[in-house]
């Protein structure tokens, strides 16, 4: 038993050739993907079966939403760069790029808060809205709210990672795990943006 524990690769799962921490993160991501994966088919069901859906161009400012999407995609690229730097042992640079990612996340959250405030000001609520079926605003607030909560959690995780990087306490794997979560948040937005704002 001790011989097994002393093996340098004891932390690796043989089938996947990766650390247990990363494997757990992937399992979490699959679970979270299924959570969002139940929202979007239900939303699609409502679109097909329910009353006529409002024209998205009358409700949303598409240039503004596209800018939000640009921000999130850019933050994903800075996070990937941070992971690359951490892998090369350059924790100072990794920390800088993680801070840039945090900034991107905060800008995205600020834009989302602004968008929500605008819609609420126009009379949108969870159970009613001025544009059409009540389900429209219910799904909008629920799905974008869940995603925004994920972004907020990601910003907190990344801020902790950046602070640890600047103190030289972070590990390359720690930065990579935080990055995996952040890319997942970006991945979910690809579906939310496409299904809710474009179709």
């Amino acid at each position, binding site marked *: 038993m001790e011989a097994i524990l002393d093996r340098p690769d004891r932390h690796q799962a043989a089938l996947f050739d*990766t650390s247990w921490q990363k494997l757990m993160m992937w399992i979490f991501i699959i679970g979270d993907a299924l959570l969002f994966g139940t929202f979007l*088919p239900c939303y699609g069901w409502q679109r097909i079966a329910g009353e006529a859906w409002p024209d998205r161009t009358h409700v949303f400012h598409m240039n503004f939403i596209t800018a939000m999407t640009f921000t999130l995609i850019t933050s994903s690229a800075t996070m990937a760069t941070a992971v690359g730097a951490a892998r090369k042992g350059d924790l100072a640079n990794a920390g800088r790029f993680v801070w840039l990612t945090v900034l991107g996340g905060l800008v995205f959250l600020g834009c989302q808060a602004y968008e929500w405030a605008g819609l609420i000001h126009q009379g949108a609520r969870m159970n009613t809205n001025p544009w059409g079926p009540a389900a429209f605003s219910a799904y909008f607030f629920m799905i974008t709210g869940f995603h925004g909560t994920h972004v907020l959690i990601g910003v907190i995780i990344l801020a902790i990672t950046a602070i640890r990087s600047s103190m030289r306490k972070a590990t390359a794997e720690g930065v990579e795990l935080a990055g995996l979560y952040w890319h997942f948040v970006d991945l979910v937005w690809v579906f939310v943006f496409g299904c809710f704002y474009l179709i």
Partner: protein
Amino acid sequence: MSEAATAHGAIGYRGYWIAWVLLLLLTVAMVSITNPTVIVAGIAIKATIISLWFMHLKFERISLAVVVIACTMLTLGVLFALLAWDATVLFKTP
């Protein structure tokens, strides 16, 4: 460092920023298109770029990539198919 990590280290930063440009271009293209089928295709391409390059699935062992993709796609595929059938058949039949 595992083999996958070594392979990942070889990507360099350029690959990430090429992926970034591709994602931005796809976003612009999707915003200017109204055909839902093309938009769904755009979503699929963007999701593939993010998961393969940014999330490094391309550089992980194939077993991990298969489990991640199969678990999510199969479950979501079944859910989408059943709900779409339910919505179209039950609610659109006169």
